[in-house]
């Protein structure tokens, strides 16, 4: 306790506070202007700031449907982001190959099934393939490149991407394939219920996706918190050297995280595949995980989930209510601007570890 207390200034806000205050003020002003009729319908300010909310009020069923769609895609983005986070946490590698791993896992599964293997056996065999992949990535790529700068490891995963594209197309061909959703007992059809004058349709497959994703996240959390390997993983994430010195095998841990990321990729592949089809075009959706990842922070599992939901819901609402104003299709970049806006206030992402810089 210091003897002299500095006098506290009466109102002192951080830049963040000022920005939020400013935004809130502008919102109230706009609302007042709209209510008093200063800004009428058709005014550009009204079109951009007031009218979308009026639409939300007028057709709540569409609002609910939009939020639901956002929720589902958010969960699916979170699934891909989860794969990234697992690997980044444990090995510091920004895994560019996660997208192609999703395709590869999906193709392997369908490929086995087409060869006449029963669906669930194919699932197990695919897991085996993903395990082999994890082992070979660790042996061939990670082990020789240990202790290299992040960007080099990032580059190496690009090499893996090329190899997987080549290998996948060589073995399975480039044809798009139908995901074996029925055989895997995934539900289809939808539940529709009337809501506020309209209807809301929930796809059963989407519900299943949300449930499975939630289960997976719970299982992963349990694995991380309660098991021996999970503890070792967290130790490695904190410090490679300290973990090595207490006798944790880095190589073994790496195989485990890459395998876990492979499982996540397989689940993602099944879910996205069931929504459209399994083809090499699917690898593009991995890019959607980047803003999620950055928003949530590279090292945080809850961050990936919350980030996924914010991005998913935000971009669907944005596209649906504001997209038509500029001709639509803004979904492709909106996610990045949402993430950017958050980053300006928290440069390490919402849940990322605080950056401490020393000379």
């Amino acid at each position, binding site marked *: 306790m210091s003897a002299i207390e500095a006098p506290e200034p009466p109102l002192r806000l951080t830049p963040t506070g000022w920005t939020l205050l400013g935004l809130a003020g502008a919102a109230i002003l706009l609302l007042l202007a709209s209510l008093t009729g200063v800004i009428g319908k058709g005014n550009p300010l009204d079109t951009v700031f007031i009218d979308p909310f009026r639409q939300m009020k007028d057709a709540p069923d569409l609002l609910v449907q939009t939020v639901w769609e956002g929720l589902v895609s958010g969960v699916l983005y979170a699934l891909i982001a989860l794969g990234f986070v697992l690997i980044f946490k444990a090995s510091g590698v920004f895994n560019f190959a996660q997208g192609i791993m999703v395709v590869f896992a999906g193709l392997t599964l369908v490929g086995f099934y087409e060869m006449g293997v029963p669906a669930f056996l194919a699932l197990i065999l695919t897991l085996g393939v993903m395990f082999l992949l994890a082992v070979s990535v660790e042996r061939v790529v990670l082990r020789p490149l240990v202790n*290299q700068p992040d960007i*080099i490891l990032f*580059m190496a995963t690009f090499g893996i991407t090329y*190899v997987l*594209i080549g290998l996948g*197309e060589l073995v399975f061909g*480039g044809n798009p394939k139908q995901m074996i959703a029925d055989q895997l007992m995934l539900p289809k059809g939808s539940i529709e219920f009337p809501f506020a004058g309209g209807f809301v349709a929930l796809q059963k497959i989407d519900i299943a996706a949300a449930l499975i994703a939630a289960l997976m996240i719970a299982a992963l959390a349990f694995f991380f918190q309660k098991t021996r390997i999970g503890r070792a993983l967290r130790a490695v994430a904190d410090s490679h050297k300290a973990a090595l010195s207490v006798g944790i095998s880095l190589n073994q841990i790496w195989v485990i995280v890459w395998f876990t990321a492979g499982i996540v990729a397989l689940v993602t592949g099944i879910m996205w595949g069931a929504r459209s089809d399994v083809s090499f075009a699917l690898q593009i959706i991995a890019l959607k995980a980047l803003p999620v990842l*950055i928003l949530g922070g590279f090292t945080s599992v809850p961050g990936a989930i919350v980030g996924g939901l914010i991005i998913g819901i935000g971009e669907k609402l944005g596209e649906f209510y504001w997209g038509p104003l500029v001709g639509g299709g803004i979904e492709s*970049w909106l996610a990045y601007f949402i993430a950017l806006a958050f*980053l300006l206030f928290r440069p390490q992402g919402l849940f990322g570890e605080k950056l401490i810089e020393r000379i």
Partner: protein
Amino acid sequence: MFYREAGQFKTSYAADMAVFPIRQDRIGIAIILALAYLGIPALQNEFLLTSVMIPMLVFSLAAIGLNLLTGYTGLLSLGTGAFMGVGAYACYKLTTLFPGVNIIVWIVASGFVSAFVGVLFGLPSLRIKGFYLAVATLAAQFFLQWCFVRIPWLYNYNASGAIEVPQRTLFGLPVTGANATPETRYLVLLTLVVVLTWFASNIVHGRVGRAWMAVRDMDIAAELMGIRLLPTKLLAFAVSSFYCGVAGAAMMFLWYGGGEANDAFNINQSFTILFMVIIGGLGSLIGSFFGAAFISMLPTILKFGLPAIGIPLSGATAEHLTFLTVGVLIIFFLIVEPHGLARLWQIAKQKLRLWPFPY
């Protein structure tokens, strides 16, 4: 034996600070330039010019641009493709609005437009770092790409939605358009690349370059030494985008000769150029050339070269194997030398100095 600087004395500071202090290096550069200017056009091989050399030069220019930002200043960018696109569209608008001005002037001028856009998207770089900064540049990538499709003014309301390159001449010879011979286009591009490389070399060896490198190595330390971070980082963004913009304009006008620009400047292009920089060597101008040559020429050589030397491969299988091989080679080179091909080159030169009598 031949590569030895014994007997070459420096009598002034200027001589000591020369970019090529060793006489043999200067001779080597002269030979390479002579080969590039006289030898390659003399082969009269149109395929070599249009599909191997011109792409390589365009990519080298873009890779130099990104290397100034990522390699020298340590700011990761994934928006290279979009900045190239800005250059291409700017050049198209400028040359159609003012057809009287020489096209070379506009190719260079479009770099300034791109630099301006680069600075805008570089603004967050003061607060956001590392992979997180990549999101700001990804926002640029997707937003600009969306603009390229959605703002018809940019492509002069063409029904095809593509850039249509008009014929422009230099000293009476057509440089752009279908009637420009590959030789003319190649020589113009080569001159552009040589001049801009010389500029870049002067920038990085001067005060600005040293400030950049100080920021790369540790920005807080650099700030404490009196380097103002924001102007330095923004200058890096500006110069880098300038190079990318010129590369984009050159790509559309001297290589592609018009076409679906949205497709040419997509996210994959950004990644490709980043990988050229990494595999060539971060923070090395010659590395940019190596990287560009490696990534842009390797698939072409594998695809067309292997059948030519009697390894029969065709169609899709060849393409798959190409992917596989490129991936394996990327990983291989990273393991052999994580600091890129430029480093390999340096080691080779070091060895050559002592050859044939290493101590």
